[in-house]
Structure formats: C-alpha cells, structure tokens
C-alpha cells in the first residue's frame, strides 16, 4: 500500500525549497539593480556638480578644475550592466531602464568632456564605442576586451560604449551625427570612425593621446612614490 501522504509532504517541502530559491534570487537581483541605480544616481549628481562647476568656469580659469572633475564610476556601471545582461534572473524592464539611464549619463559626460576640451584646450582622450547585442558579433566581444585592457592601462581614458540597436533617441542622434554604419564594432576616435576589430597596439598608435596619458600616469606614480612623508 503506497503512503501517498509522504509523497505529498515531500512535494510540498520541495515546492517550498523551490519557492524560497526563487524568492531569494529575486530579492538579490533586485538588490543588485538597486546598487546600479544608486551608482547611477551618484554619477548623475557628479555630472550635475561638474556642469555647475563648468558654468562657473565662465568666471574662473581652467586651473580650478581638479582631477575628479569627471565621474570615475561610469566604467563600473558598464561592467555591471554587461554582466546583468548575460544573466537570466534580472527583470528585463528594470535592466532596460538602467541601461537607458547609463547611456544618457555617458552622453552627458561625453558632452561635458567635449566642452572641457574646447574651453581649456585639453586633448581628447576618449573613445566612442558602438557595439551590437542584437546579432552575433565576435569582433564586438574582442573589442570589448581591448577597450577594458586600455582603460585598465590608462585610467584617464574615457570609453563611452553604446548599444547600437538600443532604442534611445540620443544614441540615434549620435549615430546620425557621426554617420555610424551598422558595420559593427565601430570606434570614434578624434572624430574619425574605425570599423571592425583593432588590436591594443593598433589603437595605441592611432590615439597619440594614450601615450601622453601613459607618460602622465608614470610621472604621477613616480611623484607619489618619491614624496617623503610629512607627518
């Protein structure tokens, strides 16, 4: 005689374990997205602060602009969103919203950077990168690795990456301003468009500012290590 009650109890306990796993996973993914949202808010505030500072520039000189003028956290949002995109547990609508905010923040940061360049004569050290998530794009994956490596090597380099097919007016405007074709990946460096994959070495040759960044980073490092303790 089969004790069907035992099966029902086992089924109920298993269902509870499943339910708990789904609940915990949801809570954690919400928490992760909340973290991204917090960083985005911080970046937005940073940009607002920089814009305000920039507005004040009309009355002051470029020397007053400190090293922390531009937000340092954009890169980390990008990494987290890329990771989240490849996971299944995240709510697509939330993720979409965060991506939208991220791209807009990138564009605002980029505009600020451009204005800074014009006003203070700083040489541009930024790359606009268009990739695709719609079609299989092996070169996009490789270009992603190259740009991450470059950013690790040159912390002052600003890489603004955009999902070419993302439905956002500002991205479409950028695409039409630079006349970016759908032949991805595409990089815009100093106003010129480069399609396809380019190795780290090729990019270092193409962007002379990277060398300057490297020299500046080395000089800073040297100064930091040779400065005697004062207290």
């Amino acid at each position, binding site marked *: 005689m089969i004790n069907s009650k*035992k*099966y029902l109890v086992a089924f109920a306990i*298993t269902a509870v374990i*499943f339910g*708990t796993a*789904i609940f*915990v996973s949801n809570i954690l993914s919400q928490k992760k997205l909340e973290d991204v949202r917090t960083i985005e808010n911080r970046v937005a505030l940073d940009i607002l602060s920089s814009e305000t500072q920039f507005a004040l520039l009309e009355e002051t000189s470029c020397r007053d602009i400190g090293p922390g003028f531009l937000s340092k956290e954009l890169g980390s949002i990008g990494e987290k969103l890329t990771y989240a995109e490849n996971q*299944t547990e995240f709510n697509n609508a939330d993720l979409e919203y965060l991506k939208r905010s991220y791209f807009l923040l990138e564009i605002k940061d980029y505009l600020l950077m451009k204005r800074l360049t014009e006003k203070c004569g700083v040489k541009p050290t930024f790359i606009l990168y268009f990739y695709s998530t719609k079609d299989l794009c092996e070169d996009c994956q490789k270009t992603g*690795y190259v740009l991450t*490596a470059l950013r690790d090597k040159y912390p002052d380099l600003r890489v603004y990456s955009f999902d070419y097919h993302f439905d956002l007016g500002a991205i479409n405007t950028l695409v039409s301003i630079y006349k970016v074709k759908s032949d991805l990946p595409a990089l815009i460096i100093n106003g010129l468009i480069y399609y396809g994959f380019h190795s780290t070495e090729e990019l270092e040759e193409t962007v002379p500012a990277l060398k300057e960044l490297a020299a500046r980073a080395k000089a800073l490092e040297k100064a930091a290590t040779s400065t005697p303790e004062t207290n």
Partner: protein
Amino acid sequence: MAEIQTLILYGSLFISLFFEVFLLITYLEVREELNREESYLSKDIQKFPTVTIIVPCFNEERTVDNTVRSLLNLDYPKEKLSIIIVDDGSTDGTGQALLRFESYPQISVLSKENGGKYTALNLALKKVQSELVGCLDADSFVNADALRKIVPFFQDTSIMAVTPSIKVFEPKSVLQYLQKIEYSWGIFLRRMLSSIGALYVTPGPFSIFRVRVFTELGGYAPGHHTEDLEIALRMQKHRYKIVNSQGAHVYTVAPKSLGALYRQRVRWTYGFLNNALDYREMFFNKKYGHIGIFILPIAASSIFSTLFVAISSVWHNLSRVLDALVKFQTVGFHWQSSLPSFDWFFINTGVLPILALGAVMLTLVILYLSIKMADGQVRLSRGIFFYLTLYIFIVPLWLAKAVFNTVFRRQVNWR
C-alpha cells in the same frame, strides 16, 4: 533551445530535491525502527535454520582463501552451515587454491567450464538442501556476526530475502577511499529502500534467500551481467519481500584503478538499464508499490538527468574557457582584469545556482547520516574529500558508456 535546456535543468533539480526530501522523511520514519531492530537482533536466536553459502570464483586465487576463511569464521553452528565453492573455469591458480578446502566437511568444491557467474550459481543451487541460501563473491569477506544479524529476519515468514550492508575492504588508493564513502551512501539508501519495500538489488556479496525463491521463480538468469539485479526485480515483480539488515556487515575489495572501476560501473549501469527495460511493465505501476511508482522511474531518470547536467556544465565551462582563450589571444594575459572580482554583484544569484546549493546541502546532510549509519560516527576523512571533489567528474563517464552500449545494443564485459 536554451529555454528547453533550462527547463530540463529545473526539472532535474526538482526531481533530485524531491528524492532527497523523500529519503530524509523516510529516515525520520525509520529512525525508531532502526533502534528496535538493533535490540531485536542482539537477542539470542532460538532456532538456527540451515544455510548454504555459494562462492562462485573466476580467477580469484588472491582473494578466495580469505573469502572462504571468513565464512568458516562465521559465528553460526557448523552443522547448520554449508559452503559450496564453484570454480567457473578459472585460468589462474584458483583451482589449486581451492584444493586446501576439500578436507572440510562443510565445504564442497565444484568445478565447471567457464559460463558466467549465473551458471556457477545455478550449478550450486541444484545441490542446495538447506532452508536458506546465499552467495558470497570471492572478492568479499563477512563479519563473524553477519549471518546472525540476517537470520532473525526470516522469522517473519513473508520475508524472502535479506541483503547486508556492504563496506569497502581496507581502502588504499584514492578511488578506494572515494568508494568507501560511496558505499556508506549505499548502506543508507538500501536501508531506506528496504523500509518502503523498494530494494531492487540483492547484491552478490552475502544476500541470503529462502531456497523456495529459486524453486518457485527459477534459478539465476544472465541478467545482462547483473544477475543480482535481475533476481531482485523478478522477486519484486512477484511481490516477494526483500529487506535489508543494516547491522550485517560484508566487506568487498573495491576496484583500485579507474579502469577497473569504470568497467565495473559500466556493467552495473548497463545491467540496470537493460533489466529495467526487461521489467518496464513495473514502471509507474501502482501494483508494485513504491518501487514501481517512484524508485525505478527515479533511478532510471537520474542516469539521464545526471548525464544532461554533466554535458550542460561541460558545455558551459567549455564556452567560458573559449572566451578566456579569445580574451588571451586578443589582449594577452592582463593581470589587472584577470583578477577575480570580489564584488558580490558578480556572484551568480540566479534561481538555478541557489537550488543547486540547496541540493548540495541536502546531499551533505544525507552523507552525514550515511557515514554515521555505516561507521557509527562521522569523522572528516580523505574519503569525504575525494568523494566531494572527484566523484561528480567520474560518474558521467560510465553513465555515458552504459547508455551508449544500451542504445547501440553493445554487450558489456564482465571485467
């Protein structure tokens, strides 16, 4: 495609978790029964039934001596115990080794042309005149009290066979230590299956039957090289009751090398699959109780779900390795970006990993109970480490081969 894969993974995890929960509930039910059994078995036996133990040998010159001596050392009245040793056409010194036992009045030595284990057993069965009969593989040894812990079960006239707890004899190699833990798991599982009447193997080492099982159901069949599985399924099909005596300990020499273990397990899994096919009418058949409705289907499906999970994880890890390779080719080894990120954001908190974690935790609980049941105490040993780290990598090897052989109708070798 990815959705189907995820769905199968969820299904597999649900079934695994369900089975583990089912086992734990059974354990809670059986706990008191185990204590009662212990006190019942320690009482003196009033009437000793006559028993014959058959020892089939094929090229077992190194171990047969210890096997037979362990039988002679059994704490059981000598006049009630007979031993029949069958040399199944050995080509080594087994025949020579058996000569020394010819002078023992309890022992008969038979010799025949090689025909497989089941033929050796059937030859001996014809000579059996006792009430109970059992088999002991010539690579196994029994504890002196093993038979005394089995015989009392037969006071219940509905019980037709009793299986022992099998342990690994003096493990030396990594694989033998690993199998020691695996066998502990087996001891736990058999005891649980016993209490729900769902034992589907009467193992070669020292399972004891009423002789009428063979007179009524016939002798051993080839059983796809797993005659101990076939006879158990045949008994279950005829609603013959099989129980497990957890206190009766038998030791077996476990395969030392990966090759030997692989061949043994391919044979076992192949045997299970093919016997399951032969007895497929029992599947999902309420008439056969837990074994039909749950245990046989889950045992069969676990082979496929384990293979599926193994292939999925190989595929997943392979694509990660390929990604890392592409990254290495593109930017070389980049120390900074190659460092693992300690940001909790990058820890996979999807439903599947959390469920897998739950399943692993339940497995550890069952493993703890198994070792406690087998050894009386739990100590962290190298066997547990080997079992937890290596076992999952080697199991899919023999499962895949056994499924392949079954699908393409290839025979397996005994050794």
